[in-house]
């Protein structure tokens, strides 16, 4: 380099090799185990759902950038991430057309109208899912249990309903079945105590924890395998892509909440560990609530945010009308994010300077 081509800029002159794309890529890598699990349990269906979401999200973002005559921002991979999280939080058998509608809504209304990545107040994937729930309520609550699966695996459901054996011969990919959380809900909604007890005993009589841990259960595409999700979460924590604050506060507050209910009425409310491993709680704790854009910035506010999400999820699950509350819990807390940031304003070390 010749001397007259020196580069001048304000300091610092060195930097950490990190970029927005790398942050997003890390999260996508962390989602891979869950993707593999989904592909294992739901076979081709998983591939179709994820591919549809990814393609429609990226194309939507690209078109919007073109229309607004802006440089394309698909390179930051955030659209891909939104797509995968959306795909993971819908029922596996959701029609492709619905998936496309959800993806377009996520990106266009959830993110781009606010000015793109970083300016969206709500988690785009959750917003897309909420839109789908509002539009296609029936399809969004029709769950399937993977059918062509090894019958040796621990199972969940009423005794004797060995789903796998029953349907394997018919070559089905999945069968419609309620989710573990729906049974939980039924038990809570049951009119009498005996009724609730029967539901719990029938459905959670054997191996239920193992089933939700490995993922052999009804539920959203990417939520079923807790093990795979935890693997991804640990990867992100080790890579410091996320901090421990939000996952721990979400999980701890949900656990404590569930434990209190379980402690007083164990015949109606299931084991708190089961609550943690089923439904979308883990994907929420590690992947959705940790979305940097829509959660607060200071540690204190992040902890409050996490506790809010955890408690809201459990409130909806136990007291609310829906069996699962991740989506609404996250969206509600997203709305509180600016408030929390304001509430937890940091004081500079040594106090506030008097000369402003």
């Amino acid at each position, binding site marked *: 380099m010749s001397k007259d081509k020196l580069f001048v800029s304000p300091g610092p002159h060195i930097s950490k090799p990190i*970029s927005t794309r790398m942050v997003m890529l890390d999260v996508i890598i962390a989602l891979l185990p869950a993707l593999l699990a989904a592909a294992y349990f739901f076979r081709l269906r998983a591939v179709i759902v994820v591919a549809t979401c990814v393609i429609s999200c990226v194309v939507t973002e690209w078109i919007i950038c073109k229309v607004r005559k802006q440089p394309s921002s698909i390179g930051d991979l955030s659209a891909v991430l939104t797509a995968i999280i959306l795909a993971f939080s819908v029922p596996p058998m959701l029609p492709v057309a619905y998936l496309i509608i959800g993806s377009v809504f996520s990106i266009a209304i959830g993110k781009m109208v606010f000015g793109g990545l970083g300016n969206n107040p709500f988690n785009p994937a959750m917003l897309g899912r909420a839109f789908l729930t509002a539009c296609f309520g029936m399809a969004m609550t029709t769950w399937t249990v993977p059918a062509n699966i090894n019958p040796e695996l621990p199972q969940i459901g009423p005794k004797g309903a060995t789903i796998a054996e029953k349907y394997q011969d018919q070559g089905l990919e999945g069968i419609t079945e309620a989710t573990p959380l729906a049974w939980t809900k039924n038990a809570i909604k049951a009119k009498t105590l005996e009724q609730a007890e029967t539901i719990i005993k029938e459905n959670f009589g054997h191996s239920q924890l193992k089933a939700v841990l490995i993922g052999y259960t009804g539920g959203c595409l990417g939520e079923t395998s807790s093990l795979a999700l935890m693997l991804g979460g640990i990867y992100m924590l080790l890579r410091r892509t996320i901090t421990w604050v939000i996952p721990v506060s979400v999980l701890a507050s949900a656990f404590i909440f569930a434990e209190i209910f379980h402690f007083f009425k164990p015949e109606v409310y299931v084991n708190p560990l089961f609550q943690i491993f089923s439904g979308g709680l883990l994907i929420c704790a590690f992947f959705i609530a940790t979305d940097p854009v829509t959660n607060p910035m200071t540690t204190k506010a992040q902890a409050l945010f996490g506790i809010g999400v955890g408690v809201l999820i459990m409130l909806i699950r136990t007291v609310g009308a829906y069996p699962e509350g991740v989506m609404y819990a996250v969206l509600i807390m997203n709305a509180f994010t600016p408030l929390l940031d304001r509430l937890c304003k940091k004081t500079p070390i040594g106090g506030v300077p008097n000369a402003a």
Partner: protein
Amino acid sequence: MSQHIGAPCKPTVAKRQEVKAGDVIGDSDAFVSAKIHSPVDGVVKDIANRSHPVLGRELAVIIDVSEDNTAKLPTPESFENFNLQDYSQEQILNAISEAGIVGMGGAGFPTSVKVAPNEKMPKHTMIVNACECEPYITCDYRVMLEWTKQFIAGVKLIQKASGCKEVHIGIENNKPKAIAAIKEVLANTSDSESIDVVTLKTKYPQGGERQLINAVMGKVVPTGVIPPMIGLLVCNVATAAATAEAVVLGQALTHRAVTVSGKGIKNPGNFYCPIGTSVSDLIDHCGGLTDDAVKVVLGGPMMGFSIADLETPTTKTSGSILVLTKKEIGKANYLGQQTNCIKCGRCVGVCPENLIPCEIASSVKVRDLDRANRFNMSACMECGCCSYVCPANIEITGLIKTGKILNARNNRK
């Protein structure tokens, strides 16, 4: 003529005048100022504006070095038999002032003003900043290692002059050799009872006064308060060494140790060179630039100033010259792609002053200075950590610097 905080000096020499090494060439009547001396024998060629690493362009005295100039060499051996009792407080203060010594860590506050006992703010504790302020720089480390006795003598002299009762030498644990050397000298010389060595964890930023005081004494300095107001005196290794030279040998501050480093330089090293040596001379001495060098920085990689003109002279506060390659700079060239702030909070996590840098930066970007001030912009010390970690590649520190300048401009109106 402006190598320190305070009033710039006025040249005291005329064009074509002959000067000897150590002659005063710039002086000022102001209280907060420091004399400037010629480091060489020669003839004043010109008095004109020249590039200045920080201030853009400043008045400078340009001296043609005469052929019979003898290079000044470091004289650490003069301090073998140093005895503190030989020097009175007045004598020390006078020597510091005459030698034009300033804080050589980077700020350049005149040492005479800093050290002089002040009845309103009596100083009780002195902290020696022996943690190399920024990565890459090693000039203080070499001074501590090679001129240990001189350095310790300087520390004792400053302690005596300022009336501090105790001295802590704060040094990072990545310099075990220097720690051992200092401890040995302290054990074998007199008047070192009140001096102790505090080993600190290596981290950046630690060389800032507020960070250092916190690390050494566990004491938080209130925002907007300078250390003397709470009875503390912080001084740097090179300053102590220069003080010893000034008091014992009566020599002015005309030379200093400079680190020349970075991947863009062929033979990096530490050099004892005349103040005012141009950057290009030093680079040539080190074998010149490599082909992939893209940036020359005076000072450290985090807070230093990149320069466009290689003829820029070094000053009393230039501890290092870094030549960085494109690879070293990484994404910090700001021509690279920026994304929107993703509000990840990484800058919040690293800020040593507990600020929310991204909010200040975004406020400055839209020129909302009131909002920036509400986020305590003035408490920022511009360490650069926020820009360093930013995944969106936003020049947060640069924006905050801009905001402060705009603030100052508004206040002047």
